[in-house]
């Protein structure tokens, strides 16, 4: 710490005067290099490339910690002092927001707020789309004011999370080992794939995949898959427990790598999967398709939240980071992995016409498509599984969710795994 002398006070005063007359960036350029923001979240978007680019473009340091979704929830809810920026999913937000560990964000400070896709603002992709079941992002995206503890159903100007990344998930299949078209979620429990199917062992996501399967089988139609009653949970689990006992499942996976290994080794030919896992299987030279299904997709979205403890220069830096995040570089990076950016139009500036056409517009690739790390993912002429942004995000049947009966569901899930 520097000693407080009259000289320093005068200097500080002069800097302050200059800052206030010439505009804030003057001071900020001086001090910003000392700022370190600690971000944590799922591996999906906690990428070192992003931290390096932040250092390059904005000058401050971003420390990234990647965890699995359960640990992320745990940390956000129980260790508010351990982070400045939480990169979490919307259903996690529903759990974490009431703890008061995050602070509301002023949308007037978000430069590209007006360009954020409708899904995160009023819930509608296009004015006439219907809102899917589950924890749709816009339902937990806004709070009543700077000190809000609840959620509001309109664009109040105070956001809980700034949306960053989202996608539509479906089943992954091995077309070479199945050898026929797959069009429905019910195929997961088709006895044809006995001992060769898998579902993920993360209860809050797995239950949604189960619900999609149950509906597709015609066993039951849920009024709201995202908020089941106890009877509905029992019914869903009963169907899957029977299938498990009949030997339908080869294994259950919990981490991304497990899902990749199960698929690539041929232990499993049909399973719940995440988009980059498909990419990882393909980059090993093994055919794998992210199969669009008639009933639609199970979707998820993530965003950035600010720790309640963040203030002053650090908070300014965090807003700067958010604005930079939505400015397109990260968006382009994520879209080249198969995710979507909250502000697609800015990402376009950072993608080639071929990439934009393939990933976003669903057009046939005109040249090789590579991942950000350089692996070839598609050849000229290939079309993205599921087609364009509107086709994929427009066919969302439900969002990842937290139910009112969450604890009951979790206990039933434990029973299912132990059965």
């Amino acid at each position, binding site marked *: 710490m520097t000693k407080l002398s009259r000289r320093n006070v005068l200097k500080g005063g002069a800097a302050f005067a200059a800052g206030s007359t010439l505009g804030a960036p003057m001071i900020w350029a001086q001090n910003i290099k000392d700022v370190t923001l600690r971000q944590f979240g799922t591996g999906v978007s906690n990428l070192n490339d992003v931290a390096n680019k932040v250092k390059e473009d904005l000058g401050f340091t971003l420390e990234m910690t990647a965890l699995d979704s359960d640990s992320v929830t*745990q940390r956000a*809810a129980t260790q508010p002092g351990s982070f400045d920026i939480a990169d979490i999913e919307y259903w996690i937000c529903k*759990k974490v927001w009431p703890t008061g560990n995050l602070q509301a964000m002023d949308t007037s400070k978000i430069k590209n707020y007006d360009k954020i896709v409708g899904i995160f603002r009023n819930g509608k992709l296009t004015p006439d789309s219907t809102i899917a079941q589950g924890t749709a992002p816009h339902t937990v995206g806004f709070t009543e004011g700077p000190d809000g503890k609840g959620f509001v159903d309109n664009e109040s100007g105070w956001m809980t999370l700034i949306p960053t990344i989202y996608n539509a998930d479906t089943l992954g299949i091995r077309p070479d080992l199945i050898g026929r078209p797959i069009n429905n979620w019910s195929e997961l429990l088709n006895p044809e794939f006995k001992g060769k199917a*898998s579902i993920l062992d993360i209860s809050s996501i797995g239950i949604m995949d189960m619900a999609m399967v149950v509906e597709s089988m015609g066993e039951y139609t849920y009024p709201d898959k995202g908020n089941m009653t106890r009877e509905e949970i029992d019914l869903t689990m009963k169907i899957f427990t029977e299938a498990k006992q009949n030997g339908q*499942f080869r294994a259950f996976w*919990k981490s991304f790598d497990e899902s990749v290994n199960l698929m690539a080794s041929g*232990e499993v030919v049909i399973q719940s999967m995440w988009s980059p896992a498909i990419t990882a299987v393909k980059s090993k030279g093994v055919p794998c398709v992210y199969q669009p299904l008639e009933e639609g997709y199970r979707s998820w979205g993530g965003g950035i939240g600010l720790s309640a403890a963040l203030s002053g220069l650090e908070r300014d830096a965090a807003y700067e980071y958010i604005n930079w995040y939505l400015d397109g570089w990260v968006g382009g990076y994520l879209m080249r992995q198969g995710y979507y950016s909250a502000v697609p139009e800015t990402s376009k500036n950072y993608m080639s016409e071929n990439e934009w056409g393939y990933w976003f517009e669903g057009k046939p690739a005109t040249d090789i498509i590579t991942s950000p790390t350089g692996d070839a993912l598609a050849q000229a002429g290939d079309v993205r599984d599921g087609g364009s942004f509107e086709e994929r995000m427009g066919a969302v049947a439900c969002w990842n969710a937290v139910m009112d009966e969450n604890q009951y569901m*979790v206990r039933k899930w*434990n029973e299912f795994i132990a059965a």
Partner: protein
Amino acid sequence: MALPIMAVLVFFLVLPIIMIVTVSFWQATEFSIIPAFDLENYEFLFGSNVTYRVFFNTFKYAFITWVFTLSIGFTVAYFLAFHIRSLTWQIALFLLCTIPFWTSNIIRMISWIPFLGRNGIANSTLISWGVIEEPLDWLLFSDFAVILAFVHLYTLFMVVPIFNTMMRIDKSLIEAARDAGASGAQILWNVIIPLTKPGIMIGTIFVVTLVMGDFITVRFMSGSRSANVGRLISNDIALLAYPSASATAVVLLLTVLIVIGLMLRFVDIRKEL
């Protein structure tokens, strides 16, 4: 001398256990833990047949693993102690047994997965020998795989204490038995096994507590298809249900203590050491 040890024990063993017992009576919602005195966690635990199934599974794994680690461990120790004459060779072969333990538990466990898989080395070898036509699915992601991994991981914990006690058996006792006309089997049964009991018991305590407290081996080798108590606890922790995890942990702790207490009734380790 005793004071520092007491302090360490109180701080790192007694206090955490008191904490766990206390939390087991608390209540939790998705995002907060509420101090209370409530038996709900225990009521749910004892009221659910999953608990009994999972505890049964845990005992089953512990028992089968114990049988295999004991028979393999005893045989290896017996060979080292009585068939290898020179001390140099005994030490060399003993070190050989520990070589696999230079890598981590998890790596030794996971390396079974590609070996046992549907298109793994075991299946393709058996098919090429013509022993089987179709790959055996039960090799991986099954109770077989779980127990195989346990036996592989924990046999050394049997070998070491048994070998240790065998080395201290007075060779003249064996000679005396032989002079008195005992057969090899009789010597083994009436002389060696009774004198090796403390080693067997220490090895048993190691294996049983390790297997009963495990969760990661069961998860990986069964492909999450089976559960033991450790997995129930880890699932609860992952879902922030600390009170319910604590309650399960308390019950598990008591169960393991009872099991060890029973075993110690058969052999007084302190007297025989």
